[in-house]
């Protein structure tokens, strides 16, 4: 892509408040992106702490550390915090930093709303974390908060409901901002089909967000009125139906899993061409595949609930629709592979994470197809097989892509290079410990170990110990990642404006670190 960049036009001085008020009041997309990323990392550590608690309890059979009720709170909050507090804000942070720079816009469309949508998050996080300390403890009915468990429970459940309201509002505002920015503020000459794929995937993700996040808000509102105001949406005694909750929840919940993976596809689609030094293979098919995944994701929700007693014609519909998603996903995987084919590849850390992503995400995708088969799903429902499946798509999928993105763009963000050697260690340790933790869980699940139970039969002891050791290793490795990032920010080598020779997108035409205000005069794309 040929770019003419107008370098003057930065004549005015960048005056903004200093100290804490700079961050509280900021409307700058780069500041807000940074805050999103640090917030999500903090939440990642909190959710990780809960995961360590879970793995510590499951290290041996019997009850050692966590009482069953607290264990259930740990699994519930681990899921909620990782999904809504870590993965989603991390992608919004990446979008905040990268979308304006990649489309040649000066900032996000609604800068003030951008600030609000971030500052709602710490409030929601505080509600979630502090619910551990209220009478009755935190919500313990699983991250999907099915009634009747969620219509019972104490104040902690109400706090969780409010937190989900806030997180939903934040996501909707963020999504509206991203859609408007992408549709209205592209530099002249950047047609939709010239947009980098990361921008495309985020545009589609943002549409999914405004489509399903309000439905989640409605669901939790119904739950709240059932709990406190005597309605009976989900209360069987009052004529409601708990299965209805599952339908509405998963109408949100299934698109939600694509909300967490589509931007990851975008990140990988940026990194692979850069380090293969070839344009992305099949750009337009990537765009169409992303769109079809998004559309299909809205009609497959009931595959999460094959065992509720639905008619077999319903099971068959949702089974076939689910399997259909493997087609556009397969198109993507083949395109990434074809991009690497005969490319002059190098294996810097972002590329390693991207290749690791493809390899492990495909494993998670295959176990997903296996789970889609109704008779198998009835066997593995609520077992560790499902846990293994969704951690392969969420940890080695979404999270690995976020790591890749951070290594890829860190030189642009802070003007310094990370330590390549340490980064490689981070990748290989993550890869090893991740598989140690979750691969064995496939076997546990097939052998029938149920999820959300703090104790287990003796036959599961060995694999659980292996899994726990892997979990502790994976957790420690992420502290090492924190060290790498801090080292890079404080004392990394100066980065060139374009540290990756294969980079073709607009952000590499800016100096490193990216100036506080960029593209105030839009670049012209030929």
């Amino acid at each position, binding site marked *: 892509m040929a770019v003419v960049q107008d370098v003057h036009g930065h004549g005015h001085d960048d005056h903004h408040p200093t100290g804490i008020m700079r961050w509280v009041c900021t409307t700058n997309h780069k500041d807000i992106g940074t805050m999103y990323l640090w917030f999500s990392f903090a939440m990642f550590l909190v959710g990780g702490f809960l995961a360590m608690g879970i793995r510590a309890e499951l290290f041996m059979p019997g009850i050692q550390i966590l009482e069953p009720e607290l264990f259930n709170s740990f699994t519930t909050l681990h899921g909620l915090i990782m999904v809504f507090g870590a993965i989603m804000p991390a992608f919004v942070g990446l979008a905040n930093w990268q979308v304006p720079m990649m489309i040649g816009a000066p900032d996000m*469309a609604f800068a003030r709303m951008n600030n609000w949508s971030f500052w709602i998050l710490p409030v929601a996080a505080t509600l979630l974390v502090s619910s551990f300390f209220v009478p009755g403890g935190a919500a313990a009915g699983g991250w999907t908060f099915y009634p009747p468990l969620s219509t019972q429970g104490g104040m902690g459940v109400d706090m969780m409901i409010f937190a989900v309201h806030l997180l939903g509002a934040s996501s909707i505002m963020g999504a509206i901002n991203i859609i408007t920015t992408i549709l209205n503020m592209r530099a002249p000459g950047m047609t939709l089909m010239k947009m980098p794929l990361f921008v495309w995937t985020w545009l589609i993700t943002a549409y999914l967000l405004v489509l399903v996040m309000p439905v989640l808000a409605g669901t939790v509102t119904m739950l709240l009125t059932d709990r406190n105001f005597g309605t009976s949406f989900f209360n069987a005694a009052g004529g409601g139906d708990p299965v209805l909750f599952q339908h509405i929840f998963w109408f949100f919940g299934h698109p939600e899993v694509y909300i967490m993976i589509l931007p990851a596809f975008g990140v990988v689609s940026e990194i692979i061409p850069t380090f293969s030094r070839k344009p992305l293979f099949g750009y337009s098919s990537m765009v169409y595949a992303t769109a079809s995944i998004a559309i299909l994701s809205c009609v497959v929700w009931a595959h999460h609930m094959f065992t509720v007693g639905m008619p077999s014609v319903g099971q068959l519909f949702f089974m076939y629709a689910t399997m259909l998603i493997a087609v556009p996903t397969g198109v993507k995987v083949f395109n990434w592979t074809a991009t690497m084919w005969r490319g002059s590849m190098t294996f810097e850390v972002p590329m390693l994470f991207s290749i690791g992503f493809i390899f492990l995400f495909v494993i998670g995708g295959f176990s997903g197809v296996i789970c889609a088969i109704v008779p198998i799903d009835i066997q593995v429902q609520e077992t560790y097989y499902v846990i293994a499946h969704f951690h392969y798509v969420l940890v080695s999928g979404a999270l690995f892509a976020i790591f890749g993105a951070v290594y890829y763009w860190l030189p642009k963000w802070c003007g310094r290079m990370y330590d390549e050697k340490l980064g490689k260690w981070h990748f290989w340790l993550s890869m090893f410990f991740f598989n140690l933790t979750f691969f064995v869980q496939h076997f546990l699940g097939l052998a029938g170990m149920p999820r959300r139970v703090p104790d287990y039969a003796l036959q599961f002891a060995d694999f659980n110990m292996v899994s726990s050791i892997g979990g502790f290793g994976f957790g420690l490795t992420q502290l090492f990642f924190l060290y790498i990032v801090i080292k890079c920010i404080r004392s990394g080598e100066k980065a060139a404006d374009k540290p990756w020779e294969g980079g073709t997108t607009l952000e590499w035409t800016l100096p490193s670190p990216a100036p506080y205000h960029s593209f105030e005069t839009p670049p012209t794309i030929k």
Partner: protein
Amino acid sequence: MMYNVAKINIAMLRKLLIFSVIMFAFGYALVPFYEKFCEVAGINNLLKPDVADKDVKVDTTRLVMIQLDSNVRGLPWQFKALQSNIKIHPGESIEVMYEISNNSDQETSGQAIPSYSPRVLEKYLKKFECFCFTKQVLKPGETRQMPVKFVIDPQIPADITTMTISYTFFSLGAVN
């Protein structure tokens, strides 16, 4: 130029906000839609009478045992079946009696929810009359006997010889 972009942006914001509100309402619209869907598809009709099939033949070669169970949750009521179990022929029309009494000094209402064991029983149990089809309101100290009329379809698999019909009364709150 900048002014124009700001105007277009605000228009877009308005559209997307309206869309979000519509989707919020859509979540609520799923509730009646789901009920209608279940009604049309015949799922979840536990609380509706079945239509009697006149051609059902009584299978006198078999006897099955029906256990009658009763529970109360969150109500000051006593609830019991007048006979704890009965032996019947599949296809035979049966009437059993349950009794509820309100032990408190408040008028309260409750709804009975049935539950069957084994699960396939739901397919073979045809109920024509049941106290669970409507909510029950009891005055202070009132006692009421209520019938359940049903037929077990003779198509029921031969290996099922004992089955349980259980009702639980849930509170609908005090009547004002």
